[in-house]
């Protein structure tokens, strides 16, 4: 049997003339997923961290549901360790959209004795799961739409677009629902819920390409700025009221930017002079270190830290 023929190649070239680009296809799919979740679930919510992925997610939600209102509120799980630029950005975006914001505070979970305070300066990343699951239960959410991408981590790479969580919020990676074609199945029983990931097939570069194309506003800390930092186990942590130098460490002024935005105590910066989206895209394309490898202290802890957190109900 012949391999690919000249006719195949010609046909391909003809088809491509009219074919949408890869960002158009990613956008179309994400919009489809958002509409399926809104239609199939009783009480969905959109998780918003103030990071670039959730900023893209909000833009896609507008594309899916305008001129109507978004058919879900926006939930921010606030660890209390925030970059002020990110909170400003969150409040600005929510006000522009005119949508409802729910804030769930990790500090409240600590005050109520739901979780133990890991202590000043320690990361609250892991204990966010409790706050998130409590918020899900309190509001009766049956689907949490998040901006996680499969290229971020090897456990995320295994996860369905609509990912089932049992009544304890747990992910069972050995026993996921089959998910064929575009047939996303959104129904759950009371107490169970879904995590929905419309950006599953996007990479970090896709997100930046889309930010550029759509001129999406982002917190300023994604671009190069000068700030005091502390180098710790190869990570550049922002010096702040929660993070101060340990013995043998020193505070240094450096030109940095953030590749991800999360809990300020465990999100590392990268040295960078990239001041705008084009420069960031060039930098990311040339980088030999992955997004989380460069910036997330929590994922360096063990080989399966993301898998373990996801089993507990993490984002």
């Amino acid at each position, binding site marked *: 049997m012949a391999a690919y023929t000249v006719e195949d190649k010609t046909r391909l070239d003809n088809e491509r003339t009219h074919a*949408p680009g890869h960002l158009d296809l990613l956008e179309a799919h994400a919009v489809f997923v958002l509409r399926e979740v809104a*239609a199939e679930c009783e009480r969905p919510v959109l998780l918003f961290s103030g990071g670039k992925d959730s900023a893209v997610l909000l833009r896609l939600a507008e594309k899916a549901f305008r001129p109507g209102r978004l058919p879900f509120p926006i939930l921010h799980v606030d660890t209390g360790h925030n970059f002020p630029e990110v909170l400003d950005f969150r409040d600005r975006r929510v006000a522009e959209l005119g949508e409802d914001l729910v804030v769930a505070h990790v500090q409240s979970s600590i005050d109520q004795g739901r979780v133990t305070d890991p202590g000043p300066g320690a990361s609250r990343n892991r204990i966010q799961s409790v706050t998130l699951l409590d918020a899900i239960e309190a509001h009766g959410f049956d689907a949490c739409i998040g901006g996680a991408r499969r290229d971020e981590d090897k456990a995320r790479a295994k996860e369905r677009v609509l990912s089932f969580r049992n009544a304890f919020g747990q992910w069972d990676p050995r026993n996921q629902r089959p998910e064929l074609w575009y047939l996303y199945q959104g129904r759950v029983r009371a107490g169970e819920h879904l995590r929905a990931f419309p950006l599953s097939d996007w990479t970090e570069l896709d997100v930046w390409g889309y930010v550029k194309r759509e001129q999406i506003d982002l917190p300023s800390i994604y671009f190069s700025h000068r700030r005091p930092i502390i180098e710790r186990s190869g990570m550049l942590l922002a010096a702040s009221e929660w993070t101060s130098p340990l013995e043998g460490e020193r505070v240094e002024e450096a030109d940095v930017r953030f590749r991800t935005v999360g809990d300020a105590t465990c999100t590392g910066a990268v040295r960078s002079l990239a001041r705008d989206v084009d420069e960031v895209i060039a930098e990311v394309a040339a980088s030999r270190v992955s997004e989380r490898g460069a910036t997330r202290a929590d994922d360096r802890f063990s080989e399966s830290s993301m898998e373990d957190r996801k089993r507990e109900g993490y984002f």
Partner: protein
Amino acid sequence: MTAYAIPVVEPSATEGGILRIATIGSVDDGKSTLIGRLLHDSRQLLDDQVSALATASRRRGAAALDLSFATDGLRDERDQGITIDVAYRYASTPRRKLVIADCPGHVQYTRNMATGASSADLAVSVVDVTAGLRDQTRRHCCVAALLGVRSMIVAANKMDLVGWDRDAYEAVAAEMRALAARTGMDAVMVIPVSALNGDNVVERSESSPWYEGPTLFEAIDAAPAVAWANGGSEGSRLPVQWVLRGPGKGRAYAGMVSGGTIGSGDEVVILPSGLRSTVSSVSTHDGPLGRAHPPLSVSVTLADDVDAGRGDMIASSASPPEVLGTLDATICWFSAEPIRPGNRYRVKHTTRVLPARVEGLEGRMDLESLQLSAAAELRENDIGRARLVLGGQIAADAYRSNRLTGSFVLVDEVTNATLGAGLVELDGRTVDRSGL
């Protein structure tokens, strides 16, 4: 052989769209290692990912870098040395973005393989030349072909273990070409590789001077893209997903173009009601479109105030799909609880959800002969033919002509678990289009 000879792929080089690839084949034939090798040698594993692989490999006593860990990301997978569920990895060739679904080979996880293959344009089938074709090689090829994957690249793997013996390669190549032809694959290419050592994956091997074809990476770059969502539907298909309403605006029907193309002025029919109208506009949030192609998400307005909502399909009135109250379908069964005549399920087809009852089983498919033989039930990982009676009607095309409007899933009415996948068959019906 020198690794790292390939230039880093520029992000702008993806105007060739997206090619979706699924790896298929038996457990232990080397699918995950091959994908790890492909990513590694095309410099698409980053430095921290390579060092994490090295640590994980050392921890499990591997002598060298175990590249299968690039996709086997779960702890259980690494400890057991098998793939349990699909891993999605993203890469680029000079022409296109790749979405690679690395599927499990074990028979127990066929449901996960089907998940990965259902949206694939291209199958990369891995065969261990020291073992030849196995049951799972045939099963996966059959499932991929049934799911509509029309082209396949075969990696004849572990060539280093047979001393790059050309006869061993030719034997596997001949068997795989015969299998592909029997299952209905159009294009197949067989490449002799060693995933372990990287021969003919990204870098051309010096061990196979008799092989003049492309490397795997080159073959993937050149593989024909299948605009599969176009299906074979000439007429437009738009399953209504959501009704958009804004202050002072009319109703717009939002959904994914799932066949043909749709544009203003098109004469359409709303199914299953049969009401007719004309498309006034097709747009996205960014503004009006000329003609919209699959699989774009759009919204359309109609000239008439007709009743339409989620679950209805807007379709070309000149070339509509079939409206069906009973379904003849090929069923891929995933549940440990068998499917039997009389059982009740929920069907999700496009955006429509209906109750269904199994009226009869026509038989179970033998994966060697591809013939149906009588069966009282289909068990986990079986494929067969069934007739379902629906608690309503759906507008469907045959799966072989349209993957989006010809597919459905069977869902447990109580637990909401997805139990099986269905492919609509229309060959038992007399479809007379002569008058259209």
